[in-house]
C-alpha cells in the first residue's frame, strides 16, 4: 500500500504541475481571445469563434497530431524553437502542458466571451467618456465585471487539463517519471495487467478530482458578489 502510494506520487505531482501550467496558459489565452470575440466590430468573428472551439470538437488524438506536426522535431515551430532556443517540446512535461492547454483553452474562451458580452456596453462607454484608454476600460471595467464567468471557465479548464490523455500521449509520449500523468499511468498499469496499481491510481485520481471540485466550489461561493 505504502509502496503503491509512493509510486503514485510521481505521476500525481506531474499531473498537477502539467494541469496548473496548462490552466494558467489557457486562462491567459482564453481571456484575450474571449474578449476579442465579444467585440462586435471584429471581422470574421463567427469563423474565429468556430476555430477557437475546434479543440472541443476534434478528437484529442487529432489535436495531438496537429501539435506534433507543428512542434515536432521537424515541425515548423518545433524546428525554430530547437534552432533558436535549443528547446524541444516532444517527450517533455512542457509538451504535455501545451497539449493540455490547447484542449482546455476553448472552455475558458467560451466562458470569457459570454461573460464579456454580458457586460453592459454603456458601462464601457461611460469609462471611455471619463478618459479611460481601451486598456484601462478592460482592466477597470470589463474584466472586473466578467471575472466570475472567466473564473468558472478556468475551473472547467483545470478539470479538463487534469484528465487530458490523447493529445498528451501524441506529443509528450508516455515516459514514466517524465511525461506519464495519472491518466496515462492508469492506462499503462491496466494494459500491463497490474490490476492493483491501476485500481489504486483510479481511486486516487477520483479523490483528487473530488477534492478539487469541492475546493473550487467553496472558493467560488466565498467570492464577494459584484
Amino acid at each position, binding site marked *: 500500500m505504502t509502496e503503491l502510494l509512493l509510486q503514485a506520487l510521481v505521476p500525481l505531482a506531474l499531473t498537477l504541475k502539467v494541469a496548473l501550467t496548462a490552466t494558467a496558459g489557457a486562462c491567459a489565452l482564453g481571456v484575450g481571445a474571449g474578449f476579442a470575440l465579444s467585440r462586435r466590430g471584429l471581422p470574421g468573428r463567427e469563423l474565429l469563434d468556430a476555430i477557437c472551439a475546434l479543440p472541443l470538437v476534434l478528437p484529442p488524438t487529432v489535436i495531438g497530431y496537429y501539435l506534433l506536426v507543428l512542434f515536432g522535431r521537424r515541425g515548423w515551430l518545433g524546428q525554430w524553437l530547437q534552432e533558436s532556443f535549443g528547446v524541444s517540446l516532444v517527450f517533455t512535461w512542457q509538451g504535455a502542458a501545451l497539449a493540455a492547454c490547447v484542449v482546455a483553452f476553448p472552455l475558458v474562451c467560451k466562458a470569457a466571451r459570454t461573460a464579456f458580452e454580458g457586460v453592459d456596453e454603456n458601462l464601457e*462607454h*461611460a469609462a*471611455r*467618456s*471619463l478618459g*479611460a*484608454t481601451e*486598456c*484601462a476600460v478592460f482592466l477597470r471595467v470589463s474584466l*472586473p465585471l466578467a471575472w466570475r464567468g472567466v473564473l468558472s471557465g478556468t475551473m472547467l479548464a483545470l478539470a479538463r487539463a487534469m484528465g487530458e490523455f490523447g493529445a498528451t500521449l501524441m506529443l509528450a509520449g508516455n515516459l514514466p517519471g517524465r511525461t506519464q500523468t495519472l491518466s496515462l499511468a492508469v492506462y499503462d498499469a491496466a494494459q500491463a495487467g497490474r490490476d492493483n496499481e491501476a485500481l489504486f491510481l483510479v481511486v486516487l485520481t477520483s479523490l483528487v478530482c473530488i477534492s478539487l471540485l469541492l475546493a473550487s466550489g467553496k472558493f467560488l461561493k466565498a467570492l464577494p458578489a459584484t
Partner: protein
Amino acid sequence: MALRLDIRKTLRAGAQEFELAAAFEAQGRSIVLFGPSGSGKTLTLRAVAGLMAPDAGRIDLDGRSLFDSVNGVDVPARQRGVGLMFQDYALFPHLSVAQNVGFGLGVGLFGRLDLAARNRVGELLDLAGLAHLADARPGRLSGGQRQRVALLRALARSPRALLLDEPFSALDPLLRARMRREVRAMCQAVDTPTMLVTHDPEDLAEFGGTVVLYDEGRVRRMETFADGPEGGVAASGLVLGEHFSAYG
C-alpha cells in the same frame, strides 16, 4: 458651448433602415434636442460624445474639430472633454460611490487616486449630500441618489459640456421634478453648459435655451429661448404647438 454639427449616419437592422441627417449650429448654456423616440436625437448625442462615428460630416465643439470625415478627424471619446450622463446612469456596480465619482480622476491603468483627487471626490460628495454613502455600492442607492452619483462622476473632470441622455425618464414623477431642478442647479453651480436629449416637454420647460426639434432623423426646427424656466415654458409651448399642428 458652441456646437456646430452636420452629420449623416445610416443604421440597418434587417430590412429596416434609419437615416440620420442632422445639421444645426447652436450656442449657449443650454441646448435641448427634443423629439419622439427614434428620431435620432440620442444618436446625435452619441456622435458628439464620440461613442458613435457618423458615416460622414463634421462636429465642432467650441471651435475644436471633434469629427471631420473630409479631413479624417475622429477624436476618441476619452479626449473629447465632455461629460456624459446615461438614461440608466451606467454606474459601475463593482465600485463604491466614491470610486465611481473619482473614476475619471484616476491616473494610470488602474486609476489610482492621488490626494488631490481624493479631496475633490470628498468635496463633490459633500456638495451633493452623499458623503455618508461614499463606501456604498450603487446597487444599494435609490434612484435619486444614483442620479446624483452619475452627475458628480460626469462633472468631476470639469467637462467642457455635460451631455444628458433622457436623464429623468427612469425616475418616478415626484422625484423627477426635483431632480430636474437639482441637476440644473448643480450644472449652474459648476458653470458647465448642458446638452439635454429628451422627449418630455417638462424637461424642456425646466432647461430652456436653444431647442432643436427632431423628427425622423432630421432637424425640423430650431428656436432659441431664454435659459432656464423663464424661456423653458415658452419652449415647451412651442413643441406642444408643433405636436398639435402635426397630429391635431
